[in-house]
């Protein structure tokens, strides 16, 4: 091996470190620029009037009140439905299901559902809830669509959490004469709960940020009231932002940025909660 060859290899090696680091920093830089742009565009418009007003044709009067309540309504229904279905499915798959074609079918099906584009769930919601069940273009239709959309995420996260509960804890419970459900409720769920909760919160933040399926299901962009029942029409934060972004005037773009700031604050709060829970309840067995 010649000395020149070795030198060249060493130069490549040094250079590679720099190149890979720069590539890594691209993602970091993208996030930085994105946040900077949004803050500098929108911060000036973010005030109490913006939070407490309805949508308007005039940018200086426009606000996100109905969108904020719409998002709350959607999450308020999506969360319990997706939570029960998701944990139920995960418990069935991990604790009850015997190996076989049926279990396999459900598992493969969940993995595939996780890869279905969100807009296709929108079409499902349109065909099934809006027109099939005649719920119409309402909060209920939107929330149920969202629940199905985030279901695979919750199932997969809960499955991992349940699987990580050691078998010897279950054995201890059975040996005390606990039935299967008593063991699950008394031992498995408490031990897996922090991880389940983390996955659940992340799934909810996905639901809060989703736009496309709700457009298809039929959220409206201009609503000047606070919804009072699940069968009301609605809009949500991302859709309100979308409608402002697609307007040509610069002022509307700026309030879109202000709306994004509100949306991101909500999401970061949720994510921070998830991270906090994960760190607080690190595995203890």
């Amino acid at each position, binding site marked *: 091996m010649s000395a020149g060859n070795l030198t060249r290899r060493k130069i490549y090696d040094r250079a590679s470190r720099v190149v890979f680091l720069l590539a890594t920093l691209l993602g970091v830089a993208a996030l930085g620029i994105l946040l900077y742009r949004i803050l500098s565009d929108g911060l000036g418009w973010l005030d109490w009037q913006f939070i407490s007003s309805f949508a308007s044709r005039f940018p200086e009067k426009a606000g996100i009140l109905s969108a904020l309540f719409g998002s709350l309504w959607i999450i308020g229904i999506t969360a319990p439905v997706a939570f029960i279905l998701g944990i139920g499915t995960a418990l069935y798959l991990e604790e009850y299901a015997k190996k076989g074609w049926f279990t396999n079918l459900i598992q493969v099906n969940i993995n595939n559902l996780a890869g279905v584009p969100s807009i296709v769930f929108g079409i499902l919601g349109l065909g099934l809830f809006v027109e099939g069940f005649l719920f119409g273009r309402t909060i209920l239709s939107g929330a149920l669509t969202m629940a199905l959309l985030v279901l695979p995420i919750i199932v997969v996260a809960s499955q991992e959490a349940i699987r990580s509960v050691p078998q010897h804890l279950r054995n201890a419970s*059975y040996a005390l004469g606990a039935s299967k459900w008593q063991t699950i409720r008394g031992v498995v769920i408490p031990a897996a709960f922090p991880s389940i909760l983390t996955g659940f919160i992340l799934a909810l933040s996905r639901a809060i940020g989703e736009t496309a399926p709700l457009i298809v299901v039929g959220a409206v962009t201009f609503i000047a009231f606070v919804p009072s029942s699940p069968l009301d029409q609605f809009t949500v934060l991302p859709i309100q932002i979308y409608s402002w972004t697609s307007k040509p005037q610069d002022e509307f773009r700026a309030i879109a940025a202000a709306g994004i700031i509100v949306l991101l604050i909500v999401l970061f709060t949720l994510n921070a909660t998830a991270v906090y829970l994960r760190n607080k309840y690190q595995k203890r067995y």
Partner: protein
Amino acid sequence: MSIIEVRDLNLYYGQHQALHNINMEIEANSITAFIGPSGCGKSTFLRTLNRMNDMIQGVRIDGSVKVVGEDIYESRVDVEILRKNIGMVFQQPNPFPKSIYENITFGPRLHGITDRNKLDEIVESSLKAAALWGEVKDVLKKPAYGLSGGQQQRLCIARALAVNPQILLMDEPTSALDPISTAKIEELLDELKTTYTIVIVTHNMQQAARISDKTAFFLNGELVEFDSTPVIFQNPCDKRTEDYITGRFG
């Protein structure tokens, strides 16, 4: 009198037969030790006595196991009540990730005891019975994971006693513990046998010799010899038992 009677017991994992034609009678208020090399079926046999093998897919059993005269493999038997009456302690200390108090009360609560005073009483008596009360009485609300390995194992014993069993099955309960903790638990077993029937699987022959009244030697899924402990260790009938006792294999 015998509290457990096993007749012609065979156990299969799918195609593989793990236990061959076991017959055994275990007396009440005694300590019976199962010894034998790893994989000889002693733990598997122990787990047939409270039907813990039910949880493993593909396990099949024939023959009969009678506990206080009742065949526990009959379909009308309630497995949960059976297991309440036959406590089990495992190789690894396995307290729940809960407080000491909640660990003990887990079982009684399962079986419908909710009265606070009664639960307090059970916690105290169980911990006393497991010789742990003095060490933990001031930290009952602390997580069980804060205890040492030996304390955790005694907590598991206390937890098993809290549902008031008649029989206590122990699957190598001291193999994960240091010698001092082991000695404490052996001492405890000697006290407990006045009240409970104890069946213990051990990999440690000295332990079997020290604490048990009767000893069963298993090899390749067969019960080779079952007799009073002095006989097994000093005057075994079977050549294979003698070879194992004297350390020629295993």
